[in-house]
Each structure stands twice: as structure tokens, then as C-alpha cells.
């Protein structure tokens, strides 16, 4: 310990070991060790700011020797720009000294002998000896801590920058998605309008063709050659019309404008009418039989949707069965449900295709050469969904059975009877 005028021996009386007071000599030794070996810099200045004591750590911290600062001004340890102001601060402290951390809220800096500047923390205390005021400072080099803090700040900043960048990217991506979605919606609407317009516009000339073909058939009378071609044209026009109707139906379902329009109908006559219409599609020797089980025949349902379901299931049976095979439509009513079953003895549905059968535009791998849109069963299922019905099937080569089931009376439906007025 270096101090002008000898050691401040009164310190020794204040030091205690675990089992009592240190002897003066030991206490002085302890104080010296504390002062000399402390990692922080310790410095004592007099009232004029002259350094009268320093420990080795302080010397190392500022690039001076172990005693190189004795006699120097404390302002020598500050960057030049701060010296004047520090002088004023020191004067103020001397007038009203308190134990405190120095420069709270300020960034304190020290200046090494080589002129380099580094951040530091200072704790101040004062004491009087022999009527003179001394100020002691504990100085800590916080370069590493500040570097770590700076690093943390930079890391935080980088993180924030990255978050901001990612957010911007996400916003951009979201905007892109929204634009793509809008575009998709626009295209879908365009497609819908086109399909609806095209289907509608195609149906009108087809209807005219059908009318003219009927007249040609009638004018041709018994001429079998004309009759054969008339029948062929009629068949193809029907196919085209059915395809267009499927596109239109799907479009209407997807637009959500299809609503169940219930009416009281006799299921037997509905089925016979459907079969009478479909008989023209049957191949040579194909039979289409119909039977109904039970006396109850009246159902409250949507006749258009039901007609579409029967037509689709029976015409599929016709299409995918060979000549000279039987097709059977069966209806039954029981426990408040209407059950329709269509059985054919055709090629069957391959097992691997069965799970996709009701998907839009799906066509079985064994029917690619047979005309179809892949929409029929999808529409059937959607109509059944709308009416609270279900559909199932079993299939193997040689026999396929489709079973549709729906409420005998659609719940809470307003009744519209297109046929009969009330009777006695």
C-alpha cells in the first residue's frame, strides 16, 4: 500500500476475524492485502483531486505502473473532453460528499495512458484524516460487460430486424396469396359464367335438333334406314344434353343456389316415368324392371332431385352393363325412410377405384372408353346430402348394387303438390 504520510492505522481496529479481533499487525496486513489484490481499481484522492493512493489494479487498468499515478491529477484518468466538467463535479462532491455510485445514468469513460478510452463504473466514498478530506473511488473496467451488452443489443436488434423482415415477407406472401385467391375466385366465376352460358346456349340448339329429328322420324314413316339414323342422332343429342345438364347442375350446386323444393309424390309413378324415359338408352336385350315393396307409396321430397338420382343410377347401370342383362330398380318405404336400390350385372367397379367413386370428375379405370363426365355420382351424392339422404354401394364383376336412402318426408318442408287438388 502506498500512501503519503504512513498507513491509516485506525482501520485495523475495525477488522474482526471469525474468532475475535485481529491483532493490529494482522489487521494492517489484511487491509494491505485487500487493497493490493482487489481486482477493481482503488484510488484515493485529496481535496484537490491529486491521487495519493492507488492499487496495482488501477495502474494496470489505465496503463500506468503499480505506482505510476501517485501525485497525478484524477482528471488525468479521464478523456480530455470530460475533464473540465469532472472538475466541477468533484468540487460539488467535496462540498456535499455522500457515498454513492458515480455518474448514475451517465456513461463514464476512462482514458488510458496510451490515450485509448474505455467504459468504467465508479463508486465514491469519502473520509477525513487529520482534518483533511479524502475521496476514495472503486473503479471497475466494464469493457467486457459493455461489449457483451453491445453484443446483446446487436443480437436483439438483429433479431428484431429479422422478425421485421420475416413479418414483411409474410405480409408480402399473404398479399400474394390474397391476390392469387382473388384471381382464382375471378377465374372460377369466369369459368362458372362460361359453363353456365355455354351449357345453356348449347341446350337450345340441341333442343331444336331433337325437335327436327322427331319430325324427320315422323315424316320418314316406315323407312327403317331413316329410322335407324334418327334413333342414333336422338341418342347422341340425349347424351350431349345429359352432359350439359350435369355441368349446369354442378355449377348450380357449387354456387349454393340449389334448394330443396319438396312436393308430395307417388314414388311408384315417379319411378315408372323415369324408367319409361330411360328405356330409350337401354342396349339390346337389356331389361329394366321396377318393383315397389309395401303399400305406402307417398313421399314428400324434391321430385327434380329424386328424378336426377334415379336417372343417374339407372343410366349408369345401362351404360356399364352389357347387352342382354337385367337391371332392376327397387323402391321401398319403411321407418320413415325411402330406399331406392339399383342392381345391374355389368363390369363392376374396380376395388381400387371405389373410394373415389363420388369424387368430382372421377371415372373408373375400366370405363375410360365409355362416354361420361365423372360428375353424375358426385351430383347424386350432393343432392342426397341436401335432402338428408345417404348413398352406398357394393360392387364386384358381374353385380353392382347402389342403395340410396332418404327421408320419406323432408322435415319442416313446405308442401307443394304439383298434381292433385284435394279430394273428398
Amino acid at each position, binding site marked *: 500500500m502506498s500512501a503519503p504520510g504512513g498507513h491509516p492505522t485506525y482501520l485495523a481496529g475495525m477488522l474482526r476475524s471469525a474468532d475475535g479481533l485481529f491483532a493490529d499487525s494482522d489487521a494492517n496486513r489484511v487491509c494491505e492485502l485487500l487493497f493490493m489484490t482487489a481486482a477493481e481499481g482503488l484510488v484515493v484522492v485529496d481535496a484537490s483531486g491529486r491521487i495519493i493512493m492507488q492499487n496495482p489494479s488501477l495502474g494496470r487498468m489505465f496503463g500506468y505502473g503499480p505506482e505510476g499515478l501517485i501525485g497525478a491529477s484524477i482528471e488525468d484518468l479521464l478523456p480530455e473532453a470530460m475533464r473540465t466538467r469532472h472538475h466541477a463535479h468533484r468540487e460539488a462532491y467535496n462540498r456535499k460528499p455522500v457515498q454513492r455510485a458515480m455518474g448514475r445514468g451517465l456513461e463514464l469513460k476512462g482514458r488510458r495512458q496510451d490515450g485509448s478510452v474505455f467504459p468504467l463504473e465508479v463508486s465514491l466514498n469519502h473520509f477525513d484524516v487529520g482534518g483533511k478530506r479524502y475521496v476514495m473511488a472503486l473503479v471497475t473496467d466494464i469493457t467486457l460487460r459493455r461489449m457483451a451488452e453491445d453484443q446483446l443489443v446487436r443480437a436483439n436488434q438483429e433479431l428484431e430486424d429479422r422478425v421485421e423482415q420475416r413479418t414483411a415477407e409474410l405480409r408480402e406472401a399473404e398479399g400474394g396469396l390474397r391476390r392469387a385467391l382473388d384471381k382464382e375466385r375471378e377465374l372460377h366465376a369466369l369459368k362458372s359464367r362460361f359453363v353456365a352460358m355455354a351449357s345453356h346456349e348449347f341446350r337450345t340448339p340441341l333442343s331444336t335438333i331433337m325437335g327436327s329429328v322427331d319430325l324427320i322420324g315422323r315424316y320418314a314413316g316406315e323407312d327403317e334406314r331413316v329410322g335407324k339414323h334418327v334413333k342414333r342422332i336422338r341418342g347422341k343429342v340425349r347424351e350431349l344434353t345429359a352432359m350439359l345438364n350435369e355441368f349446369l347442375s354442378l355449377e348450380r350446386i357449387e354456387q349454393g343456389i340449389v334448394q330443396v323444393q319438396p312436393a308430395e309424390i307417388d314414388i311408384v309413378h315417379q319411378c315408372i316415368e323415369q*324408367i319409361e324415359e330411360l328405356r330409350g338408352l337401354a*342396349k*339390346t336385350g337389356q331389361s329394366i324392371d321396377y318393383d315397389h315393396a309395401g303399400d305406402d307409396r307417398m313421399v314428400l321430397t324434391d321430385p327434380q332431385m329424386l328424378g336426377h338420382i334415379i336417372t343417374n343410377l339407372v343410366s349408369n347401370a345401362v351404360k356399364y352393363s352389357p347387352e342382354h342383362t337385367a337391371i332392376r330398380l327397387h323402391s321401398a318405404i319403411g321407418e320413415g325412410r325411402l330406399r331406392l336400390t339399383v342392381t345391374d350385372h355389368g363390369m363392376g367397379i374396380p376395388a381400387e377405384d371405389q373410394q373415389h367413386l363420388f369424387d368430382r370428375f372421377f371415372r373408373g379405370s375400366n370405363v375410360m372408353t365409355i362416354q361420361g363426365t365423372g360428375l353424375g355420382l358426385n351430383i347424386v351424392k350432393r343432392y342426397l346430402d341436401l335432402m338428408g339422404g345417404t348413398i352406398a354401394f357394393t360392387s364386384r364383376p358381374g353385380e353392382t348394387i347402389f342403395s340410396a336412402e332418404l327421408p320419406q318426408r323432408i322435415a319442416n318442408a313446405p308442401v307443394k303438390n304439383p298434381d292433385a287438388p284435394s279430394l273428398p
Partner: protein
Amino acid sequence: MSPKPIESINELVRELLRQRDPSAYGAILERYEVPTRDLEPYFRWNSRHYTRTCIHRNEYFELLVICYEPGQRTSIHDYDSQTAWIHPVMGEVVEERYAPISEGGLRLLQEKHLRPGADDSLTNGNSIHRFINPGPGRAVTLNLYARPMSKWRVYDERTGIVSVGPAGPPR
């Protein structure tokens, strides 16, 4: 004294409901003098196929109005009703009756033209037959079945196979 004519559909249905013996239905229909306008609420027209509209049905009988656009026809068919009476209401229909032949196919047995106002009611029971509206106007018939049908069997006129579907080219 001639029997009292039946002049409305409601009256016809009441008469039929009173009678449980199908053999008496013919006599009831002989008294039929219902004006066509009384049936008009049951008329339905469809450009793709003829239509069948039920007026009344119970466990003994079924009364239908059948509407044909010009050129429309039924398939060649039969059904499980024991007896059917067909009464022309409007236009003209032709009934063709067929019989299966041993070498396959169907043979046309007879044709009968039915027009309103003539002695024209037809009883065809469970025969194999079809109806055609030869045109040029629309045609309507009133059909009475005893008992109500629940089976419909279509014959293929090309192959003659019983219980077979499609009709051939227009005749």
C-alpha cells in the same frame, strides 16, 4: 231407367270408394260423363316422356291421368294389376297388344284406336301392350287399375325377350 251418370271426378272417386268388388268398376266407368275441364288440374306435360298423375289410390284401386305429347308412347309392358280400364279423355291413343312368340320376339296381335265420345273404354287386364299418341295433338287417358300396380315390366320389341327395355324407332 238408365243409371245416373257420373259428372265429376269427386263423384267418380266416391263411387269407386263405395265399391270393394273390382268387377263392379267397369259398370261405374260406363256412367262416366265427367267434363274434361274437371280433369285439367291433373294434366302434366313433359317433352321427354308421357306423365302419370295419381288422382286417388287405396288398397283396391288406383285412378290415374296419363298425358301424352304427340308421338309419345309407353314401352311395351305389362304390370301386376289384375284389371285395367282405359278411358280416352282428350286426343287419340292407339293401344297395341302383343304376344310372345316361341322363336323369340313379340307378335303384334291387335291395334285399337281410342277416341273420346266413341264406345271406347278398354279393358286390358295384364296383357302385354303399349299406348301411342299418333298425334298431331296431345292425348289424355283416364286409367283405373285394380289393384294398384307395384311391378312394372318392360318388354324388348326387338328381341321379344320378356321383361326387356327399349322401344324401337318410331313406327
